[in-house]
């Protein structure tokens, strides 16, 4: 069996799948350069509102002022088509990319998994709805019968094997898309439906219309057999939306992002995939400088599939890195990866949940700043305070845990940046840190220098000092910057 998914008014549906509220309005899609742009597609409500194909924007606005008129977006059509393919791949690996608005699935064996044929068709239609697409689904014994049934009958159609001719018989002959001269001939013969064409004698039809006529008859009978040409859909998950008016606040942008994320997550889910990186691309509409591009990348520590979490992460990221101008177009791309399969152990040490931790870290970065949250990595250099910050990720426990030593030791607390101090020196040793902090004991000097070849050169004379502070005695590491001749407190011992 073969199933065909057909999206009626595909060009309108490309907009409606991302903006579901448009489903209740009359929508028409225009193409061409204004003011010569004309209607090329519309939904049923627009037809009811007396809009017609080929109308100009002005005519459409006069005829139906409440109608939503959108310029054709090939990008959104490509996105809707990708969603259609994802819907197909959720059921079968053999999916034929037949046309922009319909695909054919090899549904053999699905009845054993999902129930009888009507249940299979219902589940396929439900999957399409979850991806925002309103589809006609038809199941038939050959691809072309399924295609004509999906185009001709709304909703779900199941044609049992052998009943194709009877079921397709009522369809108009135009649905076969014959060449104009052939169609004219058939009209002259009084052939208007599939059934009338199917009933013609084969030999007489062949004598008059040749092999083309015979093929049309087989199609009309629903007995034309051909091989399905399955296509491997590329694993690109990209959603985009062109905004009618530029957005200059994050709150309305969050609504747009929520829709894109929900759609992209539904597509990933239909392919049993997750994502570990999201790329946000914004086209900014600057009045002075024209349009510019603003991009943000969101790297996730583990594969995830949670649109609410993604939205919060993107919102926090945009809050800390806001775009510099109103946004005219939004594009979101997700890197597809296999989902994470983790088996928790009863006796494993506690660890933060990856999704929750990511959100917590994003919020913490919003409180301090991005470069101040993470793990420290000590650098292989003699430079003072050598480290760099790296991303914190939950490290999986290993079988052989290291054994910690049972001892404390004197450690340093660093002053960032070093605190400038005035030091009185006697006989080459520091004796007082101004104001009125007597040095009780000192050790040094210890010379340290390096990177004389670069701008980052340093040359220090370091001392360890015990300083009286009121009733207490504190231990510090101080140093004299030999290039500047000034004293600094580098760290305290604790």
């Amino acid at each position, binding site marked *: 069996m073969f199933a065909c998914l057909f999206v009626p008014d595909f060009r309108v549906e490309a907009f409606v799948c991302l903006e579901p509220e448009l489903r209740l309005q009359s929508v028409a899609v225009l193409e061409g350069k204004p003011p010569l742009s004309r209607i090329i597609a519309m939904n049923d409500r627009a037809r009811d509102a007396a809009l017609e194909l080929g109308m100009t924007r002005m005519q459409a606005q006069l005829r139906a002022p409440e109608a939503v008129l959108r310029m054709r977006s090939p990008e959104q059509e490509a996105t809707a088509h990708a969603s259609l393919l994802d819907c197909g791949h959720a059921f079968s690996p053999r999916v034929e990319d037949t046309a922009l608005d319909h695909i054919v699935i090899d549904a053999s064996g699905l009845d054993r998994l999902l129930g009888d044929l009507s249940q299979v068709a219902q589940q396929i239609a439900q999957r399409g709805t979850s991806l925002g697409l309103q589809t006609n689904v038809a199941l038939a014994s050959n691809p072309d019968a399924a295609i004509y049934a999906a185009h001709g009958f709304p909703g779900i159609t199941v044609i049992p094997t052998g009943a194709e001719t009877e079921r397709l018989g009522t369809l108009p002959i135009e649905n076969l898309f014959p060449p104009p001269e052939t169609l004219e001939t058939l009209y002259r013969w009084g052939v208007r439906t599939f059934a009338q064409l199917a009933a013609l004698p084969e030999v007489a039809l062949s004598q008059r219309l040749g092999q083309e006529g015979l093929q049309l008859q087989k199609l009309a009978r629903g007995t034309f057999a051909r091989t399905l040409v399955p296509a491997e859909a590329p694993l690109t998950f990209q959603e985009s939306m062109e905004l009618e008016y530029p957005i200059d606040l994050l709150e309305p942008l969050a609504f747009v992002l929520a829709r894109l994320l929900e759609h992209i997550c539904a597509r990933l889910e239909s392919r049993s995939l997750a994502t570990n990186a999201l790329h946000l691309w914004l086209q900014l509409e600057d009045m002075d400088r024209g349009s510019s591009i603003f991009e943000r990348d969101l790297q996730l520590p583990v594969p995830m599939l949670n649109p609410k979490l993604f939205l919060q992460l993107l919102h926090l990221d945009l809050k800390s890195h806001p775009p510099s101008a109103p946004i005219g177009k939004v594009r979101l791309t997700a890197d597809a990866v296999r989902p994470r399969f983790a088996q928790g152990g009863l006796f494993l040490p506690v660890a933060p949940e990856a999704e929750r931790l990511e959100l917590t870290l994003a919020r913490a970065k919003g409180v301090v700043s991005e470069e101040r949250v993470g793990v420290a990595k000590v650098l292989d250099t003699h430079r003072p305070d050598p480290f760099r910050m790296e991303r914190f990720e939950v490290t999986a426990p290993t079988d052989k845990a290291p054994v910690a030593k049972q001892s404390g030791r004197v450690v340093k*607390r660093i002053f960032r940046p070093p605190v400038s101090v005035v030091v009185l020196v006697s006989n080459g040793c520091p004796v007082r840190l101004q104001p009125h902090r007597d040095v009780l004991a000192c050790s040094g000097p210890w010379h340290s220098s390096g990177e004389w070849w670069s701008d980052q050169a340093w040359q220090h004379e370091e001392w360890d000092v015990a300083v009286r502070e009121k009733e207490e005695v504190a231990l510090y590491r101080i140093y004299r910057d030999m290039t500047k001749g000034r004293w600094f407190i580098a760290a305290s011992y604790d």
Partner: protein
Amino acid sequence: MFSAAARVLDFSRAQAILADSELGVRRASTLERPSPEMVSTGVPAIDALTGGLPRGALTEIVGPASSGRTSLLLSLLAQATARQEACALVDASDAFDPESAVAAGIDLKRLLWVRCRVTSPCETRTGVARAVIAGKKRTDPGAHVEQALKTADLLLQSGGFGVVVLDLSDVPPAIARRVPLTSWFRFRRAVENTPTVLLALEQQAYAKAAASLVLGLARRNCQWKAIADRAGPSHTRLMGEIEIGAEVLRSQIAIKKRPASAHAHYVLPSAWSIRS
């Protein structure tokens, strides 16, 4: 209908019956609190004194500068990361030294470090540094503490960390005292019934009744070790060991085996004295 007096009489009679009976029914207030799981600090003297640090509770370690608070913290973190637990350090003064941490045996990959932004060095440091820059214009002196509290709250609510440390060691008491008591109780509530050790490093105890254990540290002595036998110039001396005194200032934890004394002392060797 019973009168109020009759109800009181009935209640006292019921109490007497319960007390006489062998049912084992007692007032809830007289029940012993279940002792929390304690984790080792890695310093035997402290473990002997307190039994370790409690999970699911707030512990305060207080003391002046150079009293061994940070070395105790790093020792605890080394133990926790060796147990493969994820740890978090909210560093209000951005004073954590990764080199010292590695030397103390901490697995830095398991330690989340949040460095709160210091608007001006004057507000964070005690003693010399604070005196040196006294008089300079200060801008929002409690901003970094606020950042630290917010971040600590986020991490505690997130959960899953073995140890969460709020390091207010260098925050002057005048600023740290402004932290509302409700914040401390909120932190305590967040870690209750979780395996998280919540630790606060401070100059004075601020959390009051929210803290289950308050440990006071003080530096008793610091030895300056001469490299040569006789006393010589400054470059022939090295800072040697620091003797630390520890005292349990307050504890709400039922310890199974009480130590003989509420005080302990131990010695912290410096890095170079360990090498020698």
